[in-house]
């Protein structure tokens, strides 16, 4: 039997001004018909480049230096532009990471699906429409006929991804490439997309290459898993085995870095003194205009309290208002309600005096945008020191505190990796010697191994300084490892608040239960 997809000894370079950069080396993979191969790697490992090489859509500076790519009996590398358009979509489909950019915003959903169907299934417009309705019904979208008439911005991210999946499956390809299809989605939405994927593949028997950085998810998705690092496949094994008996050291380190709720990293209990008490916080964005009313508040009467030295987890889907809480507490968003801190009651950002600003620091999600690209690291770190009365000579000490060499002070942010940048952002927060640090999804853009190091660093800093954390995240497994107490938010409201060891109790809110069920169960 011919494999559905064969990659033999494939090598790829990107030619840059600084010379050729090796992206993929000696990659050999095979996918049998009906098989799902999971490809796991951290960012920069070359996994997406492999997908684009298979789709024959490489950037102009890419050079294929060795090997072959075969789809069934077709040699992909020798296809001309005309043959290529026949193969793409029809024989090999692709589902992208970010559904919000994968659909054309100026065309209706119907146009985009029927166009692909008419092209690849050779049906007329009327049949294509009927087929599209059937396909959308099949991916569990309610009222498919209405969705066909809508534009991409009128449906949610999860629905968009379903539309894309329906289109990919609808053209009946031999192989579908999935490039991190759930990364941009919420935990619960992502879990449903994975369920859908499992059902569709059981029905259609399509072969798939499933690319992801998320090891824990692979067991429920793939038959076999290949681990890729620096463009080389280091290990391939059955999905059920690779987590139980990893052979390569790199795979072992990846598995060790996956957060598991039962492995607690924090063992102390916080003091009983209240540090910050927020009561009835409504966060407002925008103001009423001449002809329009003010938009509804992003959070509704949320109460949060944090004790000295406590780690409080704030969990929820995107749009649940958890980042709005962070903005309110740091005075970045307008809010109503009371914040009690240090015996003072604050009723707005105007009440936040320098002492409060110093005591409450925030670390943002994206280190790329939270460090000014035109300032050197030393300058970035010396700002809070100047502002809050510190000695700028302590910059090397700050860098050392976050385990970075002192020589980094003269570097520019773009010369650092994502994890290093996040360390600088953490150092900047701790330069103020704060009592509360708000971490807004700070590990979300990072790889699991880097995430584990950042968490370790945060816990070490807490042991050193006694700072409390408000840790905002959507990763329930991670937060259950470190938090003392977890607060769950949904649609701007607080739905659950409990100590972490009471998370298995029977009286948890149904939404919390749903979140726990959707968090991929760690394996092994």
């Amino acid at each position, binding site marked *: 039997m011919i494999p559905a997809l064969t990659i033999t000894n494939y090598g790829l370079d990107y030619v840059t001004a600084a010379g050729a950069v090796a992206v993929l080396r000696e990659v050999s993979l095979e996918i049998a018909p009906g098989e799902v191969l999971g490809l796991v790697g951290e960012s920069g490992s070359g996994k997406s480049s492999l997908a684009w090489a298979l789709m024959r859509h490489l950037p102009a500076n890419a050079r294929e230096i060795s090997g072959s790519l075969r789809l069934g009996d077709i040699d992909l590398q020798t296809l001309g532009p005309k043959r290529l358009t026949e193969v793409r979509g029809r024989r090999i489909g692709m589902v992208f990471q970010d559904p919000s950019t994968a659909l054309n915003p100026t065309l209706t959903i119907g146009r985009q699906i029927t166009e692909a169907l008419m092209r690849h299934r050779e049906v007329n417009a009327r049949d294509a429409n009927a087929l599209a309705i059937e396909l959308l019904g099949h991916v569990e979208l309610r009222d498919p006929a209405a969705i066909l008439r809508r534009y991409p911005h009128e449906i949610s991210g999860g629905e968009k991804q379903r539309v894309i999946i329906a289109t990919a499956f609808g053209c009946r390809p031999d192989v579908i490439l999935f490039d991190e299809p759930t990364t941009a989605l919420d935990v619960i939405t992502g879990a449903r997309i994975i369920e859908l994927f499992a059902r569709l593949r059981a029905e259609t028997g399509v072969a798939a290459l499933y690319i992801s950085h998320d090891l824990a998810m692979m067991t429920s998705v793939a038959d076999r898993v290949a681990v890729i690092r620096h463009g080389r496949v280091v290990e391939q094994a059955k999905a059920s085995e690779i987590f139980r008996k990893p052979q390569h050291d790199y795979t072992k380190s990846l598995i060790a870095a996956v957060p598991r709720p039962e492995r607690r990293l924090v063992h102390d209990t916080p003091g009983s003194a209240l540090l910050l008490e927020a009561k009835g916080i409504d966060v407002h964005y925008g103001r009423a205009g001449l002809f329009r009313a003010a938009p509804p508040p992003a959070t509704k009467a949320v109460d949060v309290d944090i004790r000295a030295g406590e780690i409080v987890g704030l969990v929820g889907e995107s749009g649940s208002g958890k980042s709005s809480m962070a903005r309110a507490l740091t005075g970045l968003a307008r809010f109503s309600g009371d914040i009690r801190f240090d015996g003072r009651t604050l009723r707005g950002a105007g009440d936040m005096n320098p002492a409060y600003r110093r005591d409450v620091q925030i670390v943002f999600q994206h280190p790329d945008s*939270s460090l*000014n690209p035109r300032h050197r690291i030393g300058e970035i770190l010396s700002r809070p020191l100047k502002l809050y009365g510190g000695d700028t000579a302590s910059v090397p000490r700050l860098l050392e505190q976050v385990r970075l060499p002192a020589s980094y002070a003269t570097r520019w942010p773009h010369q650092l990796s994502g994890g290093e940048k996040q360390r600088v952002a953490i150092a900047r927060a701790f330069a103020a010697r704060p009592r509360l640090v708000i971490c807004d999804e700070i590990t979300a853009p990072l790889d699991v191994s880097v995430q584990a190091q950042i968490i370790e660093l945060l816990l070490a800093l807490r042991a050193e300084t006694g700072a409390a954390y408000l840790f905002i995240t959507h990763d329930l497994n991670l937060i259950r490892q470190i938090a003392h107490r977890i607060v769950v938010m949904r649609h701007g409201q607080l739905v659950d608040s409990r100590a972490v060891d009471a998370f298995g109790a029977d009286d948890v809110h149904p939404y919390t239960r749903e979140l726990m069920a959707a968090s991929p169960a760690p394996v092994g």
Partner: protein
Amino acid sequence: MTELLVRMIRKPQGAIGIMLLAVLAAICILGPWVAPYGPEKMDFLGRFRAPGWQNWLGADQFGRDVLSRLLTGARATVPMALAATLAGSAMGAVLGVASAYLGGKADEFIMRTNDAVMAIPGLLMALLLVSTLGNGAGNAVVAIAIAFAPGMARVTRSVALGVRNQDFVKAAVARGEGAAQIVFREMLPNVMGPIVIEATIRVSFAVMLFATLSFLGLGAQPPASEWGLMVADARQYMHRAPWILIAPSAAIALSAIAFNLVGDALRDALNPRDDR
């Protein structure tokens, strides 16, 4: 910096632009010394002398050497245009960034005032200002700078709005930094790219605007050898001695083209996506 220069020179347009600018700079610095005659030295035997070995670009109605006047006049034209653009860009940039940072009502107030000023055409605005301030090269510079500022403010504000939403600005706000600190240190350095590009393109407008003002008798005053003034003077002898007109016109056009080419090259070189 050197890498930027290399990227700019890689395309022929950029290389030509930079070459022309280098020549222009050399003329501005060395012009009076390399000029064969004094710019105001009259020679009544050589009135309207056609271009030849005595006067390479011919002589004007007083027998003054056109080439010498051009070489000397560069100093009165190009640095003025540069100064006007720099002043106008700086004003506009600060206004634009401050407007984007302040937001809300302050933003509305600044930008609507800005729109009102922008509604008046640049030349008309400059004319108005010069006639209020009085004739003269210095006042022309001020007038051009003020005429340029609103357009620059618009461009800067649109870039700064993007920067305003970056987390490093939010971090500075959350830290409790002052407005001046945020505008000048956090935001301004990050909008410099588009400002520099916009400014280089505007220099060519300034050269022409300055020449126009002098042409209308509101900028440099005779007997200065400013290029626009030279064109104005030569107008009446256009049929008798076209070279008096052609030489300064060509000089104005060439320097405008040079700045334009460099602006375009800079825009391409600063855009890392344009890596071909």
